């Protein structure tokens, strides 16, 4: 088992730099080796008045995309598209579908009810190494459920609860993992069980992967808040194996208005520790307090992020209104560019895993307006985008976009 693990790790490292960590955002070379079934290249997931639907398409630009008379019922915002198969949470299950010329064909399911009694998996993370890492934030005892799914056999390789260590008497309240080789980094928010006494620094817990042993607490004083993200992950592995991480430091998230005065930053984790020399102060680029609620990595050190002004939130429900602004963040040059794409409630966009030919594709669902896919030229600046395919109507919210082939 250990040999197998080592082999996988070496293999992964060989391909680092050649592939982007999310295989659904794989490069053209990869795409060329896999024959895409008809009408299966992309998967678009939507929410319409509280019900979930998804459909597949080969074209994100020219035509409209419809769930009327086509596609599937159910939520697909928590899913992963890997090597011609789509994995998505069902009713107490993780379901596997194969993309075929005649549509998505159900293969099998894993019982998540049996894996995680009394809880569920909030996050589904494609390790890029033939595995899915399922997880949720910790229970009141500080134990966070996880499961590692081997995709070749579609069986459970490892599962259980991670016991997050206490830090300065505080417990982990929120967690989200990112796997990097033979380590998994758990972004966290620490505080007391009633979400008071929130930690004033950034905390990440590193484990060996996949054993989930040897926890090491990494701390940074660059700012405060959650490094575990919310809908999306707050940590990203670049082509060189570097982890960049942002914080979510809104008082609407952790309830501490004093800590919320600390800046929104990007920090770097290298060689198993925070690199204190790298702190990219995003807040400094804005004239008033802001937070990054979602972010998506597009490659080449370029991030796209949903920035929301703290003053635009007067109630939690405001997050679902048109107050999100898309910005392009270059982590290498440390620049922030506001895109001239309409404001929208991006906070409910769980997955934007679609990169192709130097373009990043993101759904823009305007509350009270229409939903479209936008094509953004990666690193192209404020106006380097075009409006692409539209969805059915104005009560459609696109909550995930995947590239399958």
């Amino acid at each position, binding site marked *: 088992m250990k040999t197998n693990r080592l082999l996988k790790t070496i293999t992964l490292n060989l391909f680092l730099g050649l592939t982007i960590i999310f295989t659904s955002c794989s490069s053209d070379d990869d795409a060329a080796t896999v024959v895409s079934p008809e009408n299966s290249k992309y998967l678009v997931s939507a929410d*319409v*008045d*509280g*019900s979930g*639907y998804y*459909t597949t398409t080969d074209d994100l630009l020219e035509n409209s995309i419809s*769930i*009327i*008379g*086509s*596609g*599937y*019922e159910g939520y697909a915002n928590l899913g992963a598209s890997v090597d011609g198969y789509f994995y998505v949470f*069902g*009713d*107490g*299950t993780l379901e596997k579908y194969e993309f075929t010329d005649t*549509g998505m064909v159900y293969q*099998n*399911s*894993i*019982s998540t*009810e*049996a*894996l995680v*009694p*009394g*809880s*569920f998996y909030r996050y589904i993370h494609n390790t890029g190494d033939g595995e899915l890492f399922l997880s949720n934030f910790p*229970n*009141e*005892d500080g*134990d966070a459920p996880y499961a590692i799914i081997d995709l070749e*056999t*579609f*069986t*459970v390789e490892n*599962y259980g*609860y991670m016991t997050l260590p206490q830090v300065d008497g505080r417990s982990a309240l929120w967690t989200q993992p990112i796997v990097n080789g033979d380590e998994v980094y758990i972004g966290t928010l620490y505080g007391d069980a009633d979400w008071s006494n929130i930690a004033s620094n950034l905390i990440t817990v590193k484990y060996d992967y996949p054993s989930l042993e040897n926890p090491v607490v990494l701390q940074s004083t660059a700012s405060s808040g959650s490094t575990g993200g919310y809908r999306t992950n707050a940590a990203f592995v670049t082509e060189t194996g570097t982890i960049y991480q942002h914080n979510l430091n809104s008082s609407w998230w952790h*309830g501490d208005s004093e800590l919320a005065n600390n800046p929104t930053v990007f920090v770097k984790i290298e060689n198993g520790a925070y690199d204190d020399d790298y702190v990219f102060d995003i807040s400094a680029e804005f004239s008033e307090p802001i937070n990054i609620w979602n972010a998506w990595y597009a490659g080449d050190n370029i991030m796209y992020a949903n920035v929301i002004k703290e003053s635009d939130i007067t109630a939690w429900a405001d997050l679902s209104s048109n107050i999100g602004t898309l910005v392009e963040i270059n982590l290498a040059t440390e620049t922030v560019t506001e895109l001239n794409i309409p404001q929208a409630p991006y906070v409910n966009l769980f997955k934007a895993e679609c990169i192709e030919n130097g373009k990043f594709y993101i759904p823009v669902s305007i*509350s*009270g*307006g229409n939903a479209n896919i936008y094509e953004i030229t990666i690193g192209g600046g404020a106006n380097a985008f075009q409006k692409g395919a539209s969805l*059915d*109507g*104005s*009560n*459609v919210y696109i909550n995930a976009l995947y590239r399958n082939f």
Partner: protein
Amino acid sequence: MRIVVAILLLITNISAYAQVNSNRQIKGLITDITGEPIVGVTVMLQNTSKGDATDFDGNYLIKNIPQGNYTLQVSAIGFQSQNIAIEVKQKNIIKNITLVEDTSQLSKVLITSKTKAVKMEEHGFSVDAIETQKIKSQSLEINKILDNTPGVRVRTTGGIGSDFEYSLDGMSGNAIRFFIDGIPMDYYGSSYSINNLPVSLIERIEIYKGVVPVELGSDALGGAINLVTKEKLTNFAEASYSFGSFNTHKIAVHGQWRFNSGFTTRLSTFYTYSDNNYKVWGEGVFYGDESTGFQIVEFTEDNPAERFNDDFETVSAKLDLGFTQKKWADQFFVTLLASDLKKGVQTAQTMSRVFGKVRNNEQTFMPSIIYKKKNLFTDGLDVNAFAAYSYTESKVIDTSYIQYDWRGEEIGYRASGGEMGYDGRSLFTQKDNSQIYRLNTTYQLPYQFKLGLNYVYSGLKRSGEDPYTPEYRIPYIEPQNIASHFAGLSLETLKFQDKLRTNLFVKFYDYTATINDLEYTDQYEIIEYKNNITNWGVGYAASYRFSNNFLLKTSLEKAARMPSPTEALGDGVTVSNNPFIKPERSFNINLGTILGRYSIAENHGLKISLNSFYRDTKDKLLFTVLDARDNGQFQNVDRISGLGGEIDFIYDFKQKLKFNLNATYLDLRNNLEYEEDGTKNIFYKDRMRNTPYLLANAGINYTTNNILQKNSKIYTYFQSSYVHEFYLDWPSAAAAENKRTIPTQLVFDAGMSYTFPSQNFTLAFDVSNILNEQVYDNYRLQKPGRAMFIKINYQISE
């Protein structure tokens, strides 16, 4: 309230006017030998033009009679006529009469006096009425009986005691209200509900569709079902015991003893138990563990799973103590109702989530007083008053730390405990303190007009406690309140030799709620929302009988219904409260006809009923799932409207063999073009999701006498019901081949009963779902397969 006072003053004035013109009169009750009132009996004073026909309750009244000696001629088809000498001397003479069935007449004419059920159907309201006389010996649940009625669909989530939802001509959920003898059943507790009450306690079931008369004093806007219990004047006792599949036992005892003084006692009690351990398989019924790499293994028809935490047990007793047929009261009863219910909870909203230890318990205690009097103070003024207090304590027991799968095996440990939610174990006790007051009066005006007034007040205070209180449950522990006033005024008339019946009515609703919400600033804080809403409704019902075999009827209502306690206040477990909930409103129209009964040749009869309807509902209250555990909240959803139709075809041969076929088609659509925020609704004009739209029932029954023994009776039936496949979600969403469906069901039931010559003892056998079909009313919630029951009935009466 001012309106109510004004109406009462109006009635008082009219009463005074009538008293001045009163004279000698004869009145009374006409019953058959079992004490059952007979409708439509002609009562005439010989050699005069004075007379009357008995009403629905068997009462007659002949007024303005000069002093003297007369002969009362009493006649009804199917009964032996009587001539009774009577001296009219006193101002008020009460003469009750018992008629004896004329079997020779029946065999020749094949027409009987109209039952109450038939008379009900001739009102302008869209109403079906079911006499339970023939079927009460069978092991049938009321839900099952009603499910075979045109336009009615009862969707149950499982076996005996399971949750259910009624749909009447497309209106569903809490838009349908249930009554027992005209009293809203909301406060009687779950044990004394329509799916648990033994049919043997019920004399007649009235089903109002779309338009609901004022006397059913409530805010039902989609329809109403009124269970009418026995009100015999004679002493009787009935007992039944049924046992069968899934270790099901049902016992019912019902009786009345009336002393010469008029003091009357009644007892209705029943006990039901079932393991409900029927077999399930297919989608959602699976297990997965380390031996399978946690890949799911679905149970199959050849290797099914057995439900293991679905037992149901309830006992209920209702004791009436009071007086009947006294000068000061036709009925006056003090009633005590007590019930206890215990049940396992096997699954969440679908079978994909299985529970091993979750249980619900409920106890209800309800004292009440009822007073009925016809001709109170003055002729033609009938009063029916009811007052009750109800205390219901219901408990959700979800304290297990163990996770179960469909094998019934323990497969895991839940760190926080509790199987239903993510928030840890729960032992939530909900306490409902309710009061209900109802006053129903009718006054017979000149020129065959009748004024009706109905007023109902109901108030409920809901609170709770939980030793493992999570913060989200705090709003449900502190008291929340809901109160409603309902007042209805109707004017009814019969014209043109009773060919035309009309009923014009107006309704007033007032709803007040105090609902707690939880808000978080730097700590959790309860915010109390107060909400007061008033609404008016108006409607009419009319029928015209062109001939004995042709009747047209129509009804229309613009109505509202207030949120129910659970819709507004939540249940503290799976249903969240909604401080901003609004009443549901609807505009309903019915147009129907009854053709027949046509006699064909000498022995054949045919009757056809047709009904069409239009429904337009705004702010419909629908349960909306809000989390992955299927917990949610009732929210207002605009807007649903559409048309529908139903046909009911009955053929009989010598009235012994009866074949019935009915079918219902609904075309209800999502008519919300733009949402509140101005966005266009992409499912505009879609057929309503998760709503059956094509239903049919067919059945045949046969009654024969003297087969095995002289004076014995055999009753047999064979019934089939069909529900066409329908979609869980909006029909236009997703490709047809990928949609989640509730599959077509075609179910056959049959039964037979044998009544011994003494007429006291009946033995019945029933088998339901004969072909053991896998049947669903709801998505991934399988209903029981084939089940067999034997029932023993014993009855004695004076």
